[in-house]
């Protein structure tokens, strides 16, 4: 939903990390972890990253997006499962659930090609 703003955050962070490398270093891949509750559309994210990285040291990097499934746990009976539909109660005891994962929005790794030219 906020792919452009997120893409700009990624570019800022990539440039911060790259400042620790030499001037010829370039980014090969950037890996994000995105929870499925986050309404981030991968195609839009990729497109926005290409646009946001243009003219920066992140330009040309490949963006990898790892989706994180929505895992929930029943507060009443402790059952844990991966939620497919957005109905947040336990199929066994109808108890309320807590969300364990699915809201992540993390920049995990940046792969840098830092060979000397």
């Amino acid at each position, binding site marked *: 939903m906020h792919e452009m703003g997120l893409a700009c*955050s990624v570019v800022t962070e990539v440039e911060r990390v790259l400042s620790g490398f*030499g001037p010829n270093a370039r980014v090969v891949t950037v890996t994000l972890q995105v929870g499925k509750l986050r309404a981030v559309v991968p195609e839009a994210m990729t497109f926005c990253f290409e646009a946001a990285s243009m003219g920066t040291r992140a330009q040309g990097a490949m963006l990898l997006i790892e989706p994180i499934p929505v895992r929930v746990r029943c507060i009443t009976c402790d059952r844990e499962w991966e939620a497919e539909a957005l*109905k*947040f109660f336990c199929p066994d005891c109808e108890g309320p659930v807590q*969300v364990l994962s699915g809201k992540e929005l993390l920049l995990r790794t940046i*792969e840098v090609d830092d060979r000397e030219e």
Partner: protein
Amino acid sequence: MNVRAHGWPSHAADFPPKRRFPDPPASIRHHHGHDHPVGCAGAASTGAGPGAPAPGPQSDDATQSHHTTEVQVHENLLAANDRHAAAIRSLLREHKVFAVNLMSSPGAGKTALIEATLARVGHEIRVAVIEGDIETTADADRIAPFGIPVVQINTGPFGGDCHLAAPLVAGAVGQLDLRCLDLLIVENVGNLVCPAEFDIGEHRKIVLLSVTEGEDKPLKYPLMFLEASLAVITKTDLLPYLEIDLDVIRANIRAINPAAHVLAVSARSGEGIDSWLAWLRWGIAEVGAEAPSAPD
């Protein structure tokens, strides 16, 4: 961005606090199989200045053509927003101000609920309002006659942000004298999707859903209803004219968020407003009773 203030002058021009946040922890992994602490791949470890030829890790077991370094970052992409939100939250806690974030589709009745609230308790509870809109001061203008502090945030003249983010709210909070407040109501930009994504330092998120929007909206816009502590169904005075079942709306909200409180109100008729005010008073009392604590 544009922040327009009515009411009090700024007493806290230094907000948000100028803090230097540490860089996130990171480590660096080479693809040739060992780890270095951050900085060892860059100029710092070799004493070379910026612009010096890349020292990089030595190519002991990697060919030049396949020499890449993987940097572990683990940076939350909303970290900058969340830091501002945490600063707002600790400031509100320090001054014992209960802050709510009102969210809904455009036209669900957020401003009308605020007006109904101020008409009832504007003299009893010390309230300030922050209005978030893409453009116009229309909402702040509606609140101004109540004589309480109100700050209008406009996110952009030609289609700005569709939500309030914490840095904007921090600027608006900085224009309020928190020492003279019990309650801060932030009216978010009308939008049933994006505002749910952004922590603005509030104590409680509240979603409003008007009966004219249809019973299915909690199921269609789940994140908003999942994030809210309170769901307020508005415009109940219109129910006689609609084929809408209030119990179905309640059931759909509970299907997404069984822990949420649900109220049904009409700002026009006054129905349910007592319950809404009781909920606000509970929140004010809860924040007032909190022991002052260290910032998060």
